[in-house]
């Protein structure tokens, strides 16, 4: 009963073209029909696989310093070798190796930060939208306060105080980016509350948590998931920005943002140091955004 309310509300009197095709299959076909979303998804999956298989894809330790081999260019340039096909950095570490190990940092920071912010934001949004009144006022004010801080500034200040580490980065990103979910879910719940299937729940004497858990939450999930993919992209960008400013994961650990900050002084002589990690970020975030965008179209009943 939980899902039927929204579907009947969303689909007007128009006849559904293929009633025999199950809902999920239609959505799946909608997703597959446009190759852009699939390409995005494939890129993301490829990067995930590469980061998992990193030890198999390189013979070099990403943090091994070799001062005799510093600033070697990529293979397609003069003096480039296949030994270090994307070159080496200012202390002779293999760029390819650091890039693929760096993917682990970016992806895991993004993933866990999103899990925290999604859970927190959705819970808070459900409460605010469902109970309205004072609860809503307090929560909305807190959201306003959080949103008044430029996201990166808050993250920056907190990391500076707590000290840079992988864990702190995840916590900070998770606990600063929940407001978007809260806003979204609150809005959806306010309109869902008035719908018949929820009202029916009241009439049947269902308890609050039951209505929230069985009826409201499942109906909010599609938009929450779409937001989460875009938030994942944002978290990865944010991690790279913080690492770039020197407030990310601590020094020898390979992180894309940190690689770029150490590569920046060499842009005139060793362009690849600051350029390649940026391309890695671009590809990852682009893949996520493309897949997320298609996902939104797929879940949105208004887009055919």
């Amino acid at each position: 009963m939980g899902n039927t309310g929204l579907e009947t509300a969303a689909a007007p009197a128009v006849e559904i073209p293929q009633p025999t095709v199950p809902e999920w299959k239609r959505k799946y076909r909608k997703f597959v029909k446009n190759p852009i979303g699939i390409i995005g998804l494939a890129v993301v999956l490829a990067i995930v696989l590469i980061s998992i298989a990193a030890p198999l894809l390189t013979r070099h330790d990403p943090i091994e310093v070799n001062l005799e081999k510093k600033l070697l260019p990529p293979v397609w340039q003069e003096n480039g070798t296949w030994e270090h096909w994307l070159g080496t950095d200012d202390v002779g570490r293999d760029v390819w190796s650091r890039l693929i190990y760096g993917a682990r940092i970016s992806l895991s920071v993004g993933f866990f930060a999103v899990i925290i912010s999604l859970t927190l934001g959705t819970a808070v949004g459900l409460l605010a939208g469902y109970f309205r009144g004072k609860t809503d006022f307090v929560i909305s004010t807190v959201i306003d306060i959080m949103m008044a801080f430029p996201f990166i500034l808050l993250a920056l200040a907190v990391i500076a105080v707590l000290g840079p580490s992988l864990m702190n980065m995840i916590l900070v990103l998770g606990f600063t980016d929940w407001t978007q979910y809260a806003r979204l879910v609150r809005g959806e719940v306010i309109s869902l509350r008035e719908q018949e299937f929820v009202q029916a729940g009241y009439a049947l004497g269902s308890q609050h948590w039951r209505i929230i858990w069985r009826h409201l939450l499942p109906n909010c999930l599609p938009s929450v998931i779409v937001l989460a993919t875009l938030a994942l992209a944002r978290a990865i960008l944010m991690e790279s920005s913080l690492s770039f400013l020197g407030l990310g994961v601590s020094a020898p650990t390979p992180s894309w943002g940190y690689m770029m900050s150490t590569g920046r002084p060499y842009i005139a002589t060793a362009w690849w140091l600051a350029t390649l990690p940026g391309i890695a970020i671009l590809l990852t975030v682009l893949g996520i955004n493309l897949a997320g965008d298609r996902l939104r179209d797929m879940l949105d009943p208004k887009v055919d």
Partner: protein
Amino acid sequence: MALLTQIIRIILVLFGISTIAFFLIHLSGDPVLLMLPPEATQEEVEAFRRQMGFDRPLSEQYLHFLSQAVRGDFGNSLKFNQPSLEVVLERIPATLELTFYAILLSVLIAVPLGIYSAVNRNSLAENLVTVMVFLGQSMPIFWTGIMLMLLFGVKLQWLPVSGRGTWAHLIMPAFTLAVWVAPTTLRIVRSSMLEVLQQDYIRTARSKGLSEKVVIYKHALKNAAIPIITIIGFQIGKLLGGAVVTESVFAWPGVGQLVVKAIYTADYPLVQACVIVLALIVAAMNFTVDTMYRYLNPKIKSG
């Protein structure tokens, strides 16, 4: 009534901002150890603790901080040895200048492209615009900056790579920020134009024989303006956040660069002042946009 709620809310937001700024430095436990170098002696630590008032109970410190903050006193910057607020205010014009031109540039990029892609649907140009939106959204802002630097500063040597002073200095940082916010504006322009173009009054205008130019720029754009103005206003916050990174890349002497330096040097009174001033600007902008939105859009007046 709605205005009163808004005013109460903005006061609460200000209060919340200062509260966060206060507790920020207590997050790690002892703020004194945070601000002094690790080699400081026990006596130096204690003397500093008394001087900064950190020996008093937390509640007392908090009330003191709030009452000082209301008067614009955030204590002296440890590094500059002058009131933190003064240091911040000196840097504000640079940041506002950068933000202003970034918005201007982003509007100049986003509005024409958005309109064009809404009017010419399914053309090659529309697909190109979509690709640009996705690329713009996926580029790390500092990378955009570095790539511009590499191309126009190092290779072509057309523009200076850092600092502030002439128009030439402004171009790369402003463009970097513009590229960062333009995709969102472009999407909003496109979607609100698409919506407006389907309306009956557009058909009426066309059937009256008005030229397509007049229909699009006079009738459609005017009606699509509200969401566009709103999103531009809300982007100020995002831009100030982006300025933190961009200013650091281009050594642009604004508040963003100042706050990063203050964090590096553990100058926390200055960090607090920066955070509060920037958050104040964002809160004020959000409030203005909200009010303007209510004023412009009669539909939500009751809400």
